[in-house]
C-alpha cells in the first residue's frame, strides 16, 4: 500500500471550495496558495476528513532573489497520501507568514529555523527566536545575498 501523492488539481478544487481566494495555481502536483491564507488552508487540509493531513514532514524556504517561496510537505498517515503546498512571498524585506504552530507542533523548530536563516517571520508563533545562531547575530545566512 504505497503512498500516493495527491495531484494539484484535486487538492485545488477542494481547497478553493473550502477556503475562498486562496489558491493561486496548481501544477505538477504542487498547490500554490496565497501567503495570507496559508494557515487557513493548512487548517482545512488537516481537519477535512477526506484529506486528513495529520503529519507535517517539513517546511522549507527557498530564496529566489525577487521572491521567497515557502514549501510545506504534508502526509496523511490514515489516508496514505502526501501533498506539497507552496506559497510565494514577494520582495526581500518585511516577510511575514501566519504560523501553523497551532495546527502541527512539529512546525515549532522549523519555523524558528526559517526565521533564523532566511528572515521570514511567522506571526502567531509563541517563541520565534533564533535557533541555530545566537541572539544578536546580524543577518540571515542562508539568503543568497549573505556571503
Amino acid at each position, binding site marked *: *500500500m*504505497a*503512498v500516493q501523492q495527491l495531484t494539484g488539481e484535486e487538492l485545488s478544487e477542494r481547497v478553493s471550495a473550502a477556503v475562498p481566494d486562496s489558491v493561486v495555481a496548481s501544477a505538477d502536483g504542487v498547490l500554490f496558495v496565497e501567503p495570507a491564507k496559508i494557515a487557513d488552508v493548512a487548517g482545512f487540509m488537516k481537519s477535512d476528513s477526506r484529506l486528513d493531513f*495529520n*503529519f*507535517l*514532514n*517539513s517546511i*522549507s524556504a*527557498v*530564496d529566489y532573489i525577487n521572491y521567497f517561496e515557502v*514549501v510545506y*510537505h504534508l502526509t496523511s*498517515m490514515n489516508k*496514505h497520501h502526501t501533498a*506539497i503546498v507552496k506559497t510565494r512571498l514577494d520582495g526581500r524585506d518585511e516577510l511575514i507568514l501566519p504560523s501553523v504552530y497551532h495546527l*502541527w*507542533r*512539529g*512546525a*515549532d*523548530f*522549523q519555523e524558528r529555523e526559517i526565521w533564523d*536563516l532566511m528572515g521570514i517571520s511567522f506571526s502567531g508563533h509563541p517563541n520565534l527566536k*533564533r*535557533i*541555530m*545562531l*545566537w541572539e544578536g547575530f546580524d543577518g540571515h*545566512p*542562508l539568503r543568497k545575498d549573505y556571503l
Partner: protein
Amino acid sequence: MPIQTEPMTVNIGPQHPSTHGVFRLRVTFDGEDILEVEPIFGYLHRGTEKLAEERNYTQIVTLTDRLDYVSSMINNQAYCLAVEELIGVEVPQRAKYLRTLTAELQRVASHLMGIGFFLQDLGTLGTPLMYAFRLRERILDLFEMLCGARITVSYMRPGGVFFDAPDDFWPALDQFLKDFDTEYKELEQLILENEIVMVRTRGVSLLPLELAINNSVSGPSLRASGSDWDWRKMAPYDAYDRMEFDIPTATGGDNYDRFWVRIQEIHQSIRMVRQCIQQIEPGPIRADVPLVLRPEPGAEAYGRVEASKGELAFYLVSDGGISPYRCKVRSPSLMNLTTIEHLLVGWKLADMIVTLGSLDINLGEVDR
C-alpha cells in the same frame, strides 16, 4: 512552617558526558523535579545547507556523511535518492541491493550505539556498552572493507554505489552473521529483563500517539508510541519492495518501549541483510550518470528514507547549474526533539538523562 525552597536553573551541557553531543538544555529544577525545559541548539551548526550550494552534486555526498555521523550510509542513500528523482535516472539492480544491504548494516550499527549509550546513561558503567560496541566494530570493519572508511563512508553516488564489494567481503559478512546471533543474544539477556532497567524506564516519559504525530516524530520513537508507519513499507525505495520484514511496534510510548523497538529492529535488519545476500546478482553498480550533473532548471525533488532515527529527507531545487540551488535537509532528530518539553517536565533529573538517551538524537543532524 513550610520550608522555603527556590527553584534552581541549571545548564545541562553543552559539555556533559551524557547529552549525546554538544546539546544544551536549560532546566529549572525544584530539588530533583523538572519544572521547565528550554533546549538550545546550534553548537554544531556547520552550515551544511549553505555549503551544499557551492559544491556540485557528487561532492555533496561527502557533506551528507557528516550529518548524522553515526549512520552515514543512510544519509548518503537519502541524498542519492533525491538526486536520482531530480534527474530521473534508474538505479541498476545490483546497486539497489548493495545499497539496501549497507543501509541495513548501518541501521544495526546506529541502533547498537543508541542502545549502548542508553544503558550507559542508566549507570551501568560500560558493560553493555562494550558488548554493543564489540558488534559494532565488526560492522565498521565490514564497511572499511567495502569503501575504505568506517564512519564517514561516502559510499553511494547518484546513480548507484561507488565500489563493488571486493571478493573477501562476502565471506566476512557471512562470518559476521554467524557470530552475530550468539553475541547479540548475550547482550539481550544482559539487559532486556534486568529489573533495574525496567524499574527505571517503564512508565517514564510517556509519549501519546496523537502528540507524537502532531510533533512530527518519526522513526522508532513514533513506532514505540503505537504507529506502524515506516517509509520502507509505505513508499519503498531501492530493494525494499522485495524484502520481507516486520515492523516492531509498542503501545506504551515510554522509555522502555523506545528501547525495545530499537532492539527488535536490529533483528529485522539482520533478516533483511540475509535476504539481500541471497537475492543479489552480478551486474553494473552505477547508472550512466556524469560526474558533474546538470539537472533541468526548475526541477525539484523530495527524497526521503527511513533513517535509523526517523524520516530523513532532502529537498533539492535545481537551477540548471552544477550545484543545487537549494538543498534542505529534513532531519529526524530535530523533529523528534520537538517533544522534549512534554517528555521532561514533571519528571526527575535522573529520568531526563535516560529520556534523552531513549530519543536517540544525534547533534550532527540536529544542527547540520
